[in-house]
């Protein structure tokens, strides 16, 4: 299963002030597949993902170097930073719907900023995206309620719908299920598997078996370095690096 490359990351380095958090990472993220990012806490997983949509640089003192080519165009230099974030969506560890907006407005919050859609179009997009994350049937009578009034699992799917509404080409997820109960986690995992029919998914997970369940490729990070990147099956059945093997068998991390 080798699709064409969607994101080609070359010599990516990242720093927090003096701390070298990400060391010379090279990865090719395939199109329409799920890439799991695993590794112990503080290994640079989040930094890696946040460099892809240039959220890393928002932190005071943080900087990054290297290339991340989205369909051949470097997100560092070749594109406007706002454009990068519209094309590469993000879902965070803690669900963060906007409490001052209704459920429907939350879904189209990003599109409203762009301001090219009519009210009718926005309502249609909201419905379509709520359907694609499986939330429509659950909350179609509560569209006017605050986004913060939903349950945690619903909030997280709302945030995914919000990212999808921008029609991104890649969606980044930073431990999206770590704050959710098992039932909500299962729903979200199903959703991730469905999403790869349309776009590339990069998902950080603390849960090794989750990576095995949902991903096509897995990247293992340790101390800021990409130790191993391969098809998930290979990583779990025949890891090349002894560190990888020790991590996935739960002997450290």
């Amino acid at each position, binding site marked *: 299963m080798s699709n064409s490359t969607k994101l080609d990351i070359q010599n990516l380095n990242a720093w927090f002030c003096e701390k070298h958090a990400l060391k010379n990472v090279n990865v090719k993220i395939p199109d329409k597949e799920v890439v799991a990012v695993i590794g112990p806490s503080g290994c640079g997983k989040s930094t890696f993902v946040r460099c892809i*949509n240039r*959220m890393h640089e*928002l932190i*005071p003192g943080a900087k990054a170097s290297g290339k991340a080519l989205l369909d051949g165009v470097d997100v560092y230099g070749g594109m406007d930073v*706002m*454009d990068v*974030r*519209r094309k590469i*969506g*993000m879902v*965070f560890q*803690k669900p*963060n*719907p*906007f*409490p*001052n907006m209704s459920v429907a407005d939350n879904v189209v*919050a*990003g599109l409203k*900023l*762009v301001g090219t859609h009519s009210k009718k179009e926005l309502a249609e997009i909201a419905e379509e995206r709520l359907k694609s994350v499986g939330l429509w049937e659950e909350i179609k009578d509560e569209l006017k309620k*605050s986004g*913060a*009034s939903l349950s945690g699992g619903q909030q997280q799917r709302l*945030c995914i719908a*919000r*990212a999808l509404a*921008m029609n991104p080409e890649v969606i980044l997820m930073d431990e999206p299920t770590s704050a959710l109960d098992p039932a909500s986690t299962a729903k979200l995992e199903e959703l991730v598997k469905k999403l790869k029919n349309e776009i590339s998914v990069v998902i950080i997970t603390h849960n090794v078996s989750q990576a095995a369940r949902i991903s096509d490729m897995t990247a293992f990070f340790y101390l800021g370095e990409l130790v191993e990147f391969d098809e998930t099956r290979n990583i779990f059945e025949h890891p090349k690096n002894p560190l990888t093997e020790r991590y996935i068998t739960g002997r450290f991390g």
Partner: protein
Amino acid sequence: MPRRNSRFFNLQDSVFKYLLIGVSAFVVLLFITLFYMLIDRSFPSISINGLSTLTGTVWNSAAGIFGAVPAIAGTLFSAVIATLFAIPISLGVAIYFTEYAPSRIKSVLSLFIDLLAAIPSVIYGIWGLWVISPLIKIYVQQPIVGAIGFIPIFAGPAYGLSIFLASMILTIMVIPIISSLSIELLGGTPPSLREGLISLGATKWETVRHVGIPFARLGIFSAIILGLGRALGETMAVTMVIGNSYLWPFETSSLFAPATTITSKIASELYEATSTLHIASLIELALILLVITLLINTVARLIINRTIKRGYY
């Protein structure tokens, strides 16, 4: 672990509790005493003049006529105008501070905001009287009077001392209050919400506009009310720059005419007043000011409570 004498600590705890109840009760008692004093001392005026104080436009202590409307109008007008001018400037400062300013500029800026708040109002008064008044007269009032002086509210002659100048000085005094509170409030925007909107391709301004300000709006509203309260109650600087004339807003409606406020009226006449009725009328002015501030605070509180009840926050 050392043995603790529980009876001693219980006693200590209850003594402490009653002490706290005591100081809290003291605050309430202070307010009641103050309010009672104002009613008691203004009673001669209330009983003799009745409602005519609240409707009268003439203040003639020799003739015993005490109408408060021009003073009330001057107070409300100058305070509201000052607050309205201060809002965009203060929010601009706060947004620049929280979103754009590098950390070195931040520390300088916050120092100056604090300094501005710490300047005694008499200094603002002197500055307004000697520096700003002539400048505003030559560079603002005279050109406007020359150009559109036929409109009554911009009519001449251009005195320096005026309700306009008082409003400007009050604006400067209100800015540090609203801006320093707004900086705290905008700085408290949850990072997760900010990042949420930024990840959708929002600019800094859009992030402030759609996340920061909505999240802080109740607090900013409270800060504005606090600023308004400051402007309503300010005495010294206003007395020095407003010109103390009772002609505004009835004999002349010009913004460039001298006027008066409740506070400047009291400050400039109380020590010279001799007749009981005159003194009582001045104290009634103070009572009116207190009631105005209480009303504004109550309405603000109602608005805030109602917004909280609607559930978004």
